[in-house]
C-alpha cells in the first residue's frame, strides 16, 4: 500500500500493518501529532499508563505472555529517560519491544530545547538497536525494520526517535512487504557437524544434564515441544534458569527444579557432578555458575544459543552451536532417533539413583507455623488454589521472587514473567497490566513484595481505568527481604535502611484506587482469602502479612561453588560460609 500521509499517520499505519493491537504510552509535547492520529482511528488501542517505566514493563509483560511484540509510545526528554529502566530490562531478558519516542523538531536538536535529551545517545547501550528519523521518507522503512530487528535473532528492545516536524511532514507510506533489512540476517540453522558432535557426546554421557533458559521460550512454543520430546527420549534430567521456567513441565519426574543461587539441592549438585551438560538457550549468568573455576568441573559442555557472543563468554563450551533453539533441537532429535548407539542404561540408572538421593534432602522444605504465615507457605497455597486455572504469574524482585520460582510450579511456557537479568524492583505490577491486556479473561497475579511494589504502585490506576482485574499478592514482611538477608549474612545483621518504614495501609490504598483491598495475617485464613481474591472481578491488592525474618534457602553464598550451597536447616554459621573474596560480589 503506497499512499501519501503525514509522519504521524505513517506511525499508526505501520503499527497496524505490523499487527499491533495495543500500545502502552503517555502523551507529551513532542508526540502530540501521533496522539492526534491515534485519536482519529479506532483500530489501535492505546493504554495510558501513569509513568513511562510502567509502559515499557507493561509492553514486556504483554510480549512475554503472548509472543507478540510489545509497543510503547512516549514523549521526548523525561518521557524517554523514564523509559530507560524498562529498555535495559528488556535488553537483559531479550524481550522484543518497539519503543517510539518523540523528539524536539529537527532544527532544535542540539540546542538544549525544552524537554530535549539525546535519546539515541542515552539508549544506545540500552537497546538492541535504535534510530533517529531525520527524513519522513525513511520513516516507514525504519518502523518496519525496527519490528524485524526486535524479533529476529536474539530478541530485544528497539527505539525509534521521531522529531516532531517529521511527524507533521508528508511522505509516501510503504508497507512492510517491500521492506527488507540490508544486512541483518541472524543464523537460524545450527552447524550440522557441530550438532552431530553434540549428539555423539550425549550418547556416550554417563551423567548428562539439560540446562535450559529463556532462549527456549523466546524461540517459540515449538521449541518447548521439541525440548520435551528430546528430554523424554533421552531420559536425561533437566534443570532450568529463572528465565526458562515453564519450558519443561515442573510436574514431570525428570525435572529437577530451578538451578543457581537459590536453586534446588538436586539441580545444583547435578550441575556440579554432570559429565555432559547440554545448555540450551541459557547464558551462564553469574547467578547460575557461582564460582567459575569450580563450575561443573568434570563436564563437557554443549552450548546452543542464537547469539554468538553468548558462547564462550563466561564458560568455555566444548561444542558451541549457533542457531535458533527450535531449529537445533529439531536436528538433535532427528539425529538422536537415527543413531545406532544408545546411552549407557546402567550409568544413567546410577546417575538417577544419585539424583534421587539429592532430591531426598528436600531442599525447599521449611518449618511451617500455625501462628504466622510463612512466605513459602503462602506461595504454596496460592499455587494449589490457582494451578488448575488459566493463570499467569508476574513478580517483582527479591525474596518473594525466588520463593515464587521455587514454590510456584509452571507447566507451560509464557506463564511466568519476571525480571531476571536486570532485577528491576517494580517490574511485576505494570507487567501484570500488560499480561492482562493480552489475556483479558485469564487470572493474572503479581507475586510482590511490599517494598518493590511501591516503586510502580501508581499503575494500579491504569488497571482501574481499563478494568484489568490483576491481583497484587504482596508478601509483606516489612523489609526489603533480600537486602535484609544479605545484611544478615554479610554485614553482621546491621539492617541499614532495609526496613520498610511508614508503610501505607495496603487495603485502604487499594480502596483509594477504587480497587479491592484484602489482608490476611493468619495461616488458617489464607485459603479463604485467596479464594475470595480469585473471585473478585476487579483489581485486588492482597496484603499477605508474613514472617518478617524468614530467609530464602537453599543459597549458594556468593563466590562459592554449587557443591557448597547452604540449606535452611544446616545450622552453620553463615558468616563463615562467605569468604572475604565473596563479600565483594553482588
Amino acid at each position, binding site marked *: 500500500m503506497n499512499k501519501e500521509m503525514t509522519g504521524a499517520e505513517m506511525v499508526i499505519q505501520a503499527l497496524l500493518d505490523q499487527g499491533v493491537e495495543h500500545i502502552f504510552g503517555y502523551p507529551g509535547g513532542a508526540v502530540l501529532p501521533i496522539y492526534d492520529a491515534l485519536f482519529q482511528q479506532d483500530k489501535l488501542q492505546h493504554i495510558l499508563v501513569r509513568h513511562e517505566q510502567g509502559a515499557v514493563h507493561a509492553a514486556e509483560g504483554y510480549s512475554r505472555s503472548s509472543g507478540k511484540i510489545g509497543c510503547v509510545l512516549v514523549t521526548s526528554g523525561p518521557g524517554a529517560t523514564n523509559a530507560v529502566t524498562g529498555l535495559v530490562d528488556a535488553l537483559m531478558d531479550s524481550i522484543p519491544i518497539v519503543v517510539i519516542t518523540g523528539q524536539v523538531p529537527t532544527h532544535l536538536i542540539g540546542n538544549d530545547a525544552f524537554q530535549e535529551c539525546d535519546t539515541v545517545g542515552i539508549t544506545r547501550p540500552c537497546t538492541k*538497536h535504535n534510530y533517529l528519523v531525520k527524513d519522513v521518507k525513511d520513516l516507514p522503512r525504519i518502523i518496519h525494520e525496527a519490528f524485524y530487528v526486535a524479533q529476529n535473532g536474539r530478541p530485544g528492545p528497539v527505539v525509534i526517535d521521531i522529531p516532531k516536524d517529521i511527524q507533521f511532514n508528508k511522505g509516501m507510506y510503504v508497507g512492510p512487504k517491500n521492506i527488507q533489512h540490508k544486512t541483518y540476517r541472524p543464523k537460524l540453522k545450527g552447524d550440522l557437524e557441530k550438532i552431530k558432535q553434540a549428539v555423539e557426546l550425549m550418547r556416550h554421557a554417563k551423567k548428562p544434564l539439560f540446562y535450559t533458559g529463556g532462549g527456549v521460550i523466546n524461540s517459540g512454543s515449538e521449541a518447548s515441544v521439541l525440548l520435551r520430546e528430546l528430554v523424554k527420549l533421552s531420559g536425561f534430567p533437566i534443570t532450568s534458569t529463572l528465565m526458562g521456567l515453564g519450558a519443561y513441565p515442573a510436574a514431570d519426574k525428570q525435572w529437577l527444579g530451578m538451578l543457581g543461587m537459590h536453586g534446588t539441592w538436586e539441580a545444583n549438585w547435578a550441575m556440579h557432578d554432570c559429565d555432559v551438560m547440554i545448555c540450551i538457550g541459557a547464558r551462564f549468568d553469574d547467578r547460575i555458575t*557461582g564460582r*567459575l573455576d569450580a563450575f561443573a568441573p568434570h563436564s563437557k559442555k554443549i552450548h546452543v544459543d542464537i547469539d554468538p557472543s553468548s558462547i564462550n563468554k563466561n564458560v568455555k563450551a566444548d561444542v558451541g552451536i549457533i542457531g535458533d533453539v527450535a531449529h537445533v533441537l529439531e536436528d538433535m532429535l532427528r539425529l538422536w532417533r537415527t543413531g545406532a548407539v544408545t546411552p549407557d542404561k546402567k550409568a544413567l540408572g546410577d546417575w538417577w539413583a544419585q539424583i534421587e538421593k539429592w532430591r531426598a534432602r528436600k531442599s525447599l522444605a521449611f518449618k511451617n507455623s500455625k501462628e504466622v504465615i510463612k512466605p513459602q507457605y503462602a506461595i504454596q497455597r496460592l499455587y494449589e488454589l490457582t494451578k488448575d486455572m488459566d493463570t499467569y504469574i508476574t513478580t517483582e524482585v527479591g525474596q518473594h521472587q525466588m520463593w515464587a520460582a521455587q514454590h510456584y510450579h509452571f507447566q507451560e511456557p509464557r506463564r511466568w514473567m519476571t525480571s531476571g537479568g536486570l532485577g528491576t524492583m517494580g517490574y511485576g505490577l505494570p507487567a501484570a497490566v500488560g499480561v492482562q491486556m493480552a489475556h483479558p479473561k485469564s487470572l493474572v497475579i503479581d507475586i510482590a513484595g511490599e517494598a518493590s511494589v511501591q516503586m510502580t504502585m501508581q499503575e494500579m490506576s491504569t488497571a482501574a481505568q481499563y478494568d484489568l482485574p490483576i491481583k497484587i499478592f504482596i508478601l509483606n514482611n516489612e523489609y526489603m527481604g533480600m537486602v535484609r538477608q544479605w545484611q544478615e549474612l554479610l554485614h553482621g545483621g546491621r539492617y541499614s535502611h532495609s526496613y520498610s518504614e511508614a508503610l501505607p495501609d495496603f487495603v485502604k490504598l487499594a480502596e483509594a484506587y477504587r480497587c479491592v483491598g484484602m489482608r490476611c495475617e493468619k495461616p488458617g485464613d489464607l485459603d479463604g482469602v485467596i479464594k475470595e481474591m480469585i473471585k473478585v472481578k476487579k483489581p485486588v491488592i492482597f496484603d499477605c502479612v508474613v514472617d518478617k525474618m524468614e530467609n530464602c534457602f537453599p543459597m549458594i553464598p556468593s563466590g562459592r561453588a554449587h557443591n557448597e550451597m547452604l540449606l535452611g536447616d544446616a545450622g552453620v554459621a553463615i558468616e563463615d560460609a562467605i569468604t572475604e573474596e565473596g563479600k565483594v*560480589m553482588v
Partner: protein
Amino acid sequence: MSKPSGTTSHYPAQQTVEQVVHRTLSVLVDNEPGVLARVIGLFSGRGYNIDSLTVSETEHEKHLSRITIATTGTPMVIEQIKHQLERLVPVHRVVDLTESGKAMERELALVKVRGKDNSRVEALRLADAFRARVIDATTESFVFELTGKPEKIDQFVVLMQPLGLVEVSRTGICAISRGPEGM
C-alpha cells in the same frame, strides 16, 4: 583496563596468567550516524582496550565505512570482542587481520620540529633516512610527513625529541590483509 583473567564475569575465576595478544580488526559497517559511537561505546561499556582506531568511508555508493581497531586482550576476550561487534546491527563483517597471517599495518604521522643550526641539519638528515617529506618549513622549523609501520614512526619521534620536537599528530593504524583476497 585489561582484566586479570580470560573472563568477562565478575566472579572469581582461576587466576591463570593468560597470554595477552595484540590483534588488528577490520570492521565493515554501514556509514550511518552513530555507528562509530556504537563501536566505541561497546569497547568502553564492556571494558575492552582500544590501542588504535581509524575510520573512514571506503565505498561511497554502498555507504560503507571501514573501521580498523587495534586491540589487546586474552584470546577469550578477543573472541568476545569480535562476536560483540558482529552483534551490532549496522556491522556487516568483522575480520581479524592478525589471525590470517600478519596483516600490513601503516600509519601516517605529521611531526613538527623546531631548531637551528646543527640540530636543524641533523633533523633533515634523519628525515631523509626515514623517507619523511618536508611539507612545511620556516627558518626555524619543519613539518615532516612520514608513513610506515607504527614502530618506525615511534622510532622517528624518539630521534626527533632531542632535536626540538614540538608536536606529533598520528592517524592511527590502517591495515589490510596480504594476498589477492578482499575481506
